[in-house]
């Protein structure tokens, strides 16, 4: 195994917690992976719905953009947490943390979509505790902002090879109810080298009040700035007018069929501290959305918009500006009644 200085830092935050001592039904835990290639994109997510001791359901989400988006969400109670939480088996799919990094073998039954990949950490992990998720609930967010993915993606009968594609991963856990008094707006900027940036904003459900905001940057894989609430601004511009987005699962699409109301065409996030600044500009080029029945409201649906597109990072240090090109993913959570 080649020594990877970022592997050890990530290892502490990889194992599945399972929520053994948490409020069982409210426990949520998920591993999220994003791979942004030049002509394809992959979003993979495995999440636990409820604490492990109560035999929760698990949900596997696998979405691939190759021209258009394809994929689905699959829910099962066939879940096993193995090797002290370092390996998770969901139906015929498996995620494992190995001495090299993540090993993913994810297969959506019946959909012809699969991801077989190794994801090697290429930047330092950061952990953000106690994010406010409404009603006193808090979530811990562990961010591996940049990695390299190698393997293959199967979609619509095609096998797409992955070779050192830029990737993002996070592992999050805590208690909350879908549809509670919160939404998040999150994004990751992935260039070809280890100069990523990750930003987020937590708001109340109606998006009138920001509760927390931040922008984290890395330089050559190492943690750079962490701009906090008072040092960041998030600007949404225009309205995205792309084609009607794929909604998964299809059974919820009739509840969220209204178009991209409130979905921006461009997002600009800026962090500023003294003479230093970072500005991430993302132009939305594609959209897909995940719908989740709200737990906190029987007549509401949570819509998780996944938006991708080209992006730039303008980094200013000591009066010198460097522009870095890349791609970005944005995730905007909305609650629909």
């Amino acid at each position, binding site marked *: 195994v080649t020594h990877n200085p970022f592997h050890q830092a990530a290892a502490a935050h990889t194992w599945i917690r399972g929520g053994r001592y948490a409020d069982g039904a409210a426990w949520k835990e998920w591993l999220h992976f994003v791979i942004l290639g030049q002509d394809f994109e992959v979003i993979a997510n495995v999440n636990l719905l409820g604490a492990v001791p109560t035999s929760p359901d698990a949900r596997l989400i696998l979405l691939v953009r190759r021209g258009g*988006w394809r994929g689905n969400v699959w829910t099962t109670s066939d879940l096993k947490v193995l090797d002290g939480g370092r390996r998770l088996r969901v139906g015929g799919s498996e995620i494992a943390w190995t001495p090299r990094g993540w090993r993913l073998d994810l297969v959506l039954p019946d959909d012809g979509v699969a991801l077989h990949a190794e994801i090697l950490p290429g930047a330092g992990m950061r952990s953000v505790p106690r994010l406010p998720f409404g009603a006193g609930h808090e979530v811990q967010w562990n961010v591996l902002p940049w990695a390299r993915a190698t393997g293959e993606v199967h979609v619509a009968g095609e096998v797409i090879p992955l070779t050192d594609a830029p990737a993002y991963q996070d592992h999050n856990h805590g208690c909350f109810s879908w549809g509670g008094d919160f939404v998040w707006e999150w994004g990751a900027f992935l260039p070809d080298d280890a100069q990523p940036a990750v930003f987020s904003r937590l708001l109340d459900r109606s998006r009138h009040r920001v509760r927390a905001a931040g922008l984290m940057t890395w330089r050559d894989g190492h943690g750079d700035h962490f701009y906090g609430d008072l040092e960041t601004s998030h600007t949404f511009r225009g309205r995205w007018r792309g*084609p009607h987005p794929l909604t998964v699962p299809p059974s919820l699409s009739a509840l969220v069929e209204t178009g991209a109301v409130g979905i921006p065409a461009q997002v600009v996030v800026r962090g500023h501290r003294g003479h230093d600044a970072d500005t991430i500009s993302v132009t939305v080029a594609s959209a897909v959305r995940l719908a989740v029945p709200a737990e906190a409201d029987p007549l509401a649906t949570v819509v998780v918009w996944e938006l991708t597109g080209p992006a730039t990072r303008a980094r200013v240090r000591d009066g010198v500006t460097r522009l870095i090109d890349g791609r970005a993913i944005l995730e905007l959570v909305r609650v629909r009644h």
Partner: protein
Amino acid sequence: VSDTDLHARVDAAFAALAADSPWHLGAIARALLDTVARLEVDEGALRLAAAHEAPVALPGPGPADVTVRTTAAAFRRLITGQETLRDQLRAGALDLRGTPAHLLRVEAAWRAWLHGAVRSPRSAALLQGSHLPCDGPLAG
């Protein structure tokens, strides 16, 4: 779909909701209030009304405030996300008739049923719609 088939399917859908999410069954009735809706699917027809905090289905045609006309195939495309309500109304695959006030009540009842169905494993099994291949509209 005959009158009898349609009635059996709607009854089964309400029974699934009664077992898994009775709150939503009440929400359908509260949305309908005093509105009677006639549902015509292929060759079958029934009327929906609210009674005692739950909707009831009466087999066969009859007078109604709202008429909803569709086909079983179009309904399937709707609930699997292949087409939207707007798509179907524009294409004539779905035909709605009634006053705006009555139509809004039926639309609210439809949404209450959908909200219940997506929270009801028995409904998902009935619809077989919880895990269907995604060959619907694709975004670029």
